[in-house]
């Protein structure tokens, strides 16, 4: 098969592209940043409209320039309304602009993205910069229009949840030309007052009800971003809006979706707090009561243990007291008696001359000696007589005198000899001793005869 594809001439192709592009993009809006702006003698404006990744040539003819609200310059974020045109002799395509819009949604969006990127790079959105907001704020300062629905919403919720909180309203325009400036001034002034010690705000709340992106422009202001960044008081953004975020939301320490949402987030629920306090109070009292009960129980036990001992101790104490008392009495009586004797002795001593008494004693001692001597002598004589008589009696009954009359005593054994009183005590052939008045006999038993009486 032969290649049946049509072969264009350059002119044919270019014309075809031109009719396609101009037909397709005859009435469009493009958002971008102006750069490389130049204005030759013709008075027309040539520039490049660009974004991050692409660019397109644009021209704004002199006759269209009278409708401009402000002179375009490099870096401006704009939305261009116009059409695409192809310039055949150079094969260029460019944007022929009818009007420039500085505040259209697209332009704002672009400006927003650009600012966001820059501030992010500068570190204004860093999470570690976020200042904590006290969980139970005492004083909140609202920066808002005092007549708006936002302030009303906030106060209504705040007073329902935690009416004790002090709320101050710092009036500021929240939309229009002056809004950004007034918001900046409010944040800086509240900070100054705080530093001067005239305010003790726990947070600044930038409040605004809902609105279109354009209405919220003040909250995308770069100056305001820096002001929030510099604030030593935590800043809360409470701007109701449909779009995702404002710059203020990103810099703020806390972002609330709406003013009433901010009141809910910032303030505790009074009822919950009351319940919490009541719970703590209850727990504290119960713990303490249990503790005291335990101690009381211990004291009761100790008392019980001690009560057994307590009574004897009491008795002992009483007894000891009693004894001490008795002892004291006795001692006192004794002392008194001693004293009396001493007194008497002293009197006697005074009355009697001790020398006389001594002489008297000496005479009495001599007398006694004489009497003792006499008695002693008589006693000795008496005893001698008694002894002589006793000796006589003794002699009469002595076995020796019996022996003298011819009797003899037979004894046997060695050492301490045994007196023989019966023939049964000896055997024939046994040696015995016979004691006589003037000596003894060594004999041998030759016969043993028992007298019949002994059988």
């Amino acid at each position: 098969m032969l290649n049946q594809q049509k072969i264009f001439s350059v002119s044919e192709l270019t014309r075809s592209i031109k009719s396609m592009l101009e037909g397709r993009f005859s009435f469009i809006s493009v958002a971008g940043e102006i750069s490389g702006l130049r204005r030759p003698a013709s008075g027309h404006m040539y520039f490049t409209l660009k974004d991050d990744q692409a660019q397109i040539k644009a021209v704004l003819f002199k006759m269209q320039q009278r409708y401009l609200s402000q002179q375009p310059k490099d870096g401006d974020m704009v939305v261009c309304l116009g059409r695409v045109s192809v310039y055949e002799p150079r094969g260029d395509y460019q944007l022929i602009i009818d009007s420039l819009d500085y505040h259209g949604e697209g332009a704002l969006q672009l400006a927003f993205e650009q600012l966001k990127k820059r501030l992010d790079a500068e570190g204004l959105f860093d999470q570690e910069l976020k200042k904590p907001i006290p969980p139970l704020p005492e004083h909140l300062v609202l920066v808002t229009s005092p007549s708006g629905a936002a302030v009303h919403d906030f106060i209504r919720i705040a007073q329902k949840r935690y009416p004790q909180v002090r709320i101050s309203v710092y009036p500021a325009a929240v939309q229009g030309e002056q809004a950004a400036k007034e918001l900046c001034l409010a944040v800086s002034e509240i900070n100054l007052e705080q530093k001067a010690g005239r305010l003790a705000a726990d947070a600044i709340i930038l409040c605004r009800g809902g609105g279109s992106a354009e209405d919220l422009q003040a909250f995308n202001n770069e100056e305001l971003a820096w002001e929030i960044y510099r604030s030593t008081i935590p800043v809360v953004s409470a701007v109701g809006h449909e779009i995702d975020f404002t710059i203020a939301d990103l810099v703020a320490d806390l972002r609330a979706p709406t003013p009433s949402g901010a009141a809910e987030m910032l303030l505790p629920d009074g009822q919950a707090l009351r319940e919490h306090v009541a719970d703590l109070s209850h727990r504290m009292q119960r713990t303490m009561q249990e503790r005291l009960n335990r101690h009381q129980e211990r004291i009761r036990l100790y008392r019980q243990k001690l009560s057994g001992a307590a009574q004897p101790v009491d008795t002992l104490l009483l007894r000891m007291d009693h004894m001490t008392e008795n002892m004291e009495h006795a001692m006192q009586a004794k002392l008194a008696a001693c004293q009396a004797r001493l007194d008497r002795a002293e009197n006697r001593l005074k009355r009697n001359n001790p020398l006389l008494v001594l002489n008297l004693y000496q005479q009495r001692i001599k007398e006694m000696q004489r009497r003792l001597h006499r008695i002693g002598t008589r006693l000795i004589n008496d005893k001698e007589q008694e002894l002589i008589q006793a000796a006589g009696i003794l002699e009469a009954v002595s076995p020796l005198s019996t022996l003298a009359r011819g009797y003899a005593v037979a004894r046997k054994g060695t050492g301490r000899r045994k007196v023989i009183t019966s023939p049964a005590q000896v055997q024939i052939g046994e040696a015995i001793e016979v004691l006589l008045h003037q000596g003894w006999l060594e004999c041998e038993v030759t016969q043993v005869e028992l007298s019949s009486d002994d059988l």
Partner: protein
Amino acid sequence: MAKRTFENALTKLDRITAELEQGDLGLDNSLKKFDEGVQLVQFCNEKLEEARSQVELLLKKNDTLTATPFTEKSGGMSD
């Protein structure tokens, strides 16, 4: 001494309750803490029952901000 705020009081009360419940304190100390706790409860309750505070409007007068009572009619009808 730091200003006695509701928040401080509540934090302290929380701590005291926990300490008492732990039971590590001596009886004397416990009684002291309990006494303090009771005062804190009283303080918190007073704070919670306090009449609602007035909303005020901060206006610049002679270069300083002055507070004047705020009513919903303070502002205009716009916005």
